[in-house]
């Protein structure tokens, strides 16, 4: 699907850019009213076909009919609970939570659960920090000569309050004097920098990739050979992030040509050639996030969909020029999302309660070129490094204490996203160094990673400390080791063990009357067996 086709989904009236001559006060004061008014003016997407379920379910069902796909039954309560806990708040359910949910007689118990999870502001924010830190390259591992600046505190507060995503992104692009200016500062190393990596060009590359699904990386050095973007377009966007129009460099050589700020979709607005930096920031924040921009809402909806189902409605999610997908469905969801004030939790709720999300997970298959990503349910997904290590911590009660990112979080448990410096297991499981934008964690299993899990000190220490805590807890005093096995299975896999599994577990746990020191190794090993099971490592 090409760019023009996607643009054509919303017929754009000729529009003159809004001026915010009076500065930032006006811009922020009128922000929501302006956005709402513009949404009202958009052409409404076609009504989904009639039938059962939400409009989203009906739209998906229409693709099933067309593809002659008969959906299987949705997953059972326990599988749903594990999935939805990990997806909404990044932790598996506790035994108590699982039990409460299972026993809830309400017909809409899944909706009730999702609502309860989304209402847990802190847990939701802590989980989604990982996703956003990756997108924004937000990290606190280094800051030589003050060349970088994290936005952690602002970001965490934004996620706790569920800041609408248009506002969140507008604040990043127009930070003013008190906002998250670290984002536009970029990733810098001391010394001379290639023209294609000066902060305004970095901003153009990252804003276009992350928020507009347009790749300018190639075009920020020379006219792109992977899409239609020209060098001049990359500089046109970059000039919004510079206090004066930038001189275009081709392959790091000055061309003598100064490029005025010009948005990738010029019909969305403009800015005077002599505008100051604040005015440029306001203009670009407006153009990126305004409802008439056909890219922004679709890109964000697609990213959230991909987080929750393992593949986007449109792929590749980073580059709408070069891919294919379910554009009608994406447009519908984007419109719905904009109509709900760009509310991320509303969007997540829609997806988590959709029928397609609740289908059994299926293997990922290679697709032929031009074939849209299947809509047959989620794919089996590897837990992120953060989900995995948090889950290990939750089932054992051992949360390692290490140096943390500079943000105040009222949680006695130090969740992994806050670790300032990732240790070897966190890195091996895929936490990126955030020098580059990461929109999709690598899920591959490698021998080097397996070595870290099989004989590395980090996981081994966590299980050692964890086993000690468990043995000292009520569970350690439990006389019937079958109960211990059952409890730990429920905690880690959200299911009860079968008879074979109970016997195998018991063979490691020993008897309650034995000395703790004697039981400790067996408990460690049993925990290892659990957290190394594919069932634990993956969300199904």
């Amino acid at each position, binding site marked *: 699907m090409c760019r023009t086709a996607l643009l054509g989904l919303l017929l754009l009236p000729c529009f003159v850019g809004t001026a915010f001559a009076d500065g930032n006060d006006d811009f922020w004061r009128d922000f929501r009213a302006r956005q709402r008014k513009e949404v009202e003016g958009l052409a409404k997407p076609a009504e989904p076909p009639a039938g059962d379920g939400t409009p989203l379910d009906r739209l998906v069902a229409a693709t099933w009919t067309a593809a002659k796909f008969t959906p299987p039954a949705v997953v059972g309560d326990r599988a749903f609970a594990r999935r939805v806990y990990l997806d909404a708040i990044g932790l598996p359910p506790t035994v108590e939570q699982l039990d409460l949910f299972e026993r809830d007689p309400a017909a809409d118990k899944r909706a009730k659960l999702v609502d309860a999870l989304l209402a847990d502001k802190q847990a939701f924010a802590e989980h989604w920090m990982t996703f956003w830190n990756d997108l924004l390259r937000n990290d606190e591992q280094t800051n*030589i000569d003050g060349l970088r600046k994290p936005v952690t505190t602002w970001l965490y507060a934004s996620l706790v309050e569920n800041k609408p995503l248009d506002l969140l992104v507008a604040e990043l692009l127009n930070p003013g004097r008190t906002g998250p200016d670290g984002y536009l500062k970029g990733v810098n190393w001391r010394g001379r920098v290639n023209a294609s990596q000066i902060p305004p060009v970095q901003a153009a590359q990252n804003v276009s990739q992350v928020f507009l699904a347009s790749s300018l990386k190639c075009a920020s*050095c020379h006219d792109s050979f992977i899409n239609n973007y020209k060098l001049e377009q990359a500089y046109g966007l970059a000039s919004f992030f510079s206090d004066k129009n930038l001189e275009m460099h081709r392959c*790091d050589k000055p061309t003598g040509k100064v490029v005025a700020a010009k948005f990738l979709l010029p019909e969305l607005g403009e800015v005077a050639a002599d505008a100051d930096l604040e005015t440029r920031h306001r203009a670009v924040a407006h153009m990126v996030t305004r409802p008439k921009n056909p890219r922004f809402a679709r890109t964000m909806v697609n990213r959230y969909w991909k987080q929750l189902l393992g593949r986007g409605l449109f792929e590749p999610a980073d580059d709408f020029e070069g891919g294919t997908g379910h554009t009608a469905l994406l447009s519908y969801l984007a419109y719905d999302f904009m109509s709900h004030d760009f509310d991320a939790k509303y969007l997540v709720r829609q997806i988590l309660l959709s029928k397609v999300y609740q289908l059994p997970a299926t293997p990922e298959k290679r697709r032929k070129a031009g074939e849209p990503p299947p809509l047959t349910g989620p794919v089996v997904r590897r837990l992120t490094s953060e989900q995995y290590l948090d889950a290990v911590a939750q089932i054992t009660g051992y949360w390692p204490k290490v140096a943390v990112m500079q943000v105040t979080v009222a949680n006695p448990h130090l969740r992994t996203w806050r670790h300032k410096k990732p240790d070897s297991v966190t890195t091996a499981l895929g936490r990126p160094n955030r020098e*580059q934008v990461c929109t999709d964690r690598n899920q591959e299993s*490698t021998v080097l990673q397996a070595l870290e*899990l099989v*004989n590395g000190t980090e996981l081994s220490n966590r299980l*050692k400390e964890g086993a000690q805590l468990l043995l000292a807890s009520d569970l350690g005093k439990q006389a019937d080791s079958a109960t211990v096995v059952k409890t730990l299975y429920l905690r880690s896999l959200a299911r009860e063990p079968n008879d074979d599994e109970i016997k195998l577990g018991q063979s490691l746990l020993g008897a309650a009357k034995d000395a703790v020191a004697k039981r400790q190794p067996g408990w460690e090993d049993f925990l290892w067996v659990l957290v190394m099971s594919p069932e634990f490592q993956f969300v199904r």
Partner: protein
Amino acid sequence: MTANPLSRRDFLRTSCLAGAGALVGSHLRADEKKLQPTADSVILLWMAGGQAATETWDMKKYTPFEKGMEAKAVFSTFKAIPTSVDGLKISEGLPNIARVMHHGTLVRTFKAGDLGFILHSRHQYHWHTGYVPPQTVAAPHIGAVIARTLGPRHPDVPAFIDIGQRSAGGEDFEVKAFQTAGFLGNSYGPFLVPEPAQAVHTVQPPTGMSKERFKERQELYLKTLKARREAAGLDPKEEEFLKSIEGAHRLLASPAAKAFDLSQEPKESYDVYNTGRFGLGCLLARRLVEAGARFIEVSTEYVPFLGWDTHENGHSRLVDMMKLIDAPIAQLVRDLDERKLLSRTLVVIASEFSRDMLVEGKPEQKVQDQVQVPEKITEEKFYGMHRHFTGAGGVVLFGGGVKRGSVYGVTADERPFVSVKNPVTIPDLHASLYRTVGIAPDLSYDTEARPFFVTEDGKGKAVDALFA
């Protein structure tokens, strides 16, 4: 390649991170005849922190310490001694290496990149990946490129092993940023062995766990899996995960893993190598090459202001640093030669740049000073090479098909000690290293639909004169 009015060569000349978008996977120039590798393994001995060439490999006039001497009068602070190569002299601090120089080629004219205000880790990143950060994609370490392109030599020995860099202090993040396979994916390493003396633990059960217990744990794991597999089946990703676990166990149980156990080395040999962490790293590297490793880096370890990063006391510190490297490197070369491995193993000694008494950066491109150098050297702590010099540096290559007993490049005998003949840049140096293992400089791997070349823009050119 699709219709393009430019030939590929012209195209490369006019583009930076560019190439032919229509190609997929990895690309070799069609008209290039296949490179015949002259080496199967590479050992990179990394002199972290900026090793002063005029104190080690490229000796200038000896100027002993005299209280009150002029700074500009200080050339080399060590005497030059003869080597096993006629007419070639190196530092008196390297008497053992002097005796094996006939096995290798000394490059005197390595020219580091012009990156402005010096940051060690940035130059190290450049040296190890061929690219200057920041980059829009995560650039792979050359060891990862070799691992990706050639695979392991022995299935149970990781193809890319990195020894001796603990990265716990300053610039640790920056160092880790290039100690990676980048976009190639973590299958291609590095396998990290920060403490060579503890290397055996990297291939043993976790601390405190007996071999029996480790084995029983695995058996129970497999039984539990069987119970599950029968009940629910496994997804291909889950199968891939289990394969990785099997792979780890196979590696741990492999006879090749014994190479990691330095206690199995005869005492007299161990003692020759044991000058410290770096020396034991050289021993481990030799054992791993014998066992079938593909690419190994052994670092003296970069910690700001330590090791070769002499901001003061340059002379006295280098006495110790040369002691640290001299015996083990010489022994490594001798051992590889005796075992008939040197002819197929390239050993490289390199550093991110050199140092000088006066010049920061290089003469025509001076950058911000980081070290105060008094005009008169009144105290010994000012005697030494304390500024970062990028105009010329030393690289030593042993074995692997390079010329034996050869010297390449000429530097000035008067300050500034710049390259005056045959400078070697990073792309050309990398092209030369890659050539020994049969990798073309314009080999590329696609990421985000763009080709990423193993030397910058595919432009590296191997230095023919280095090869036998």
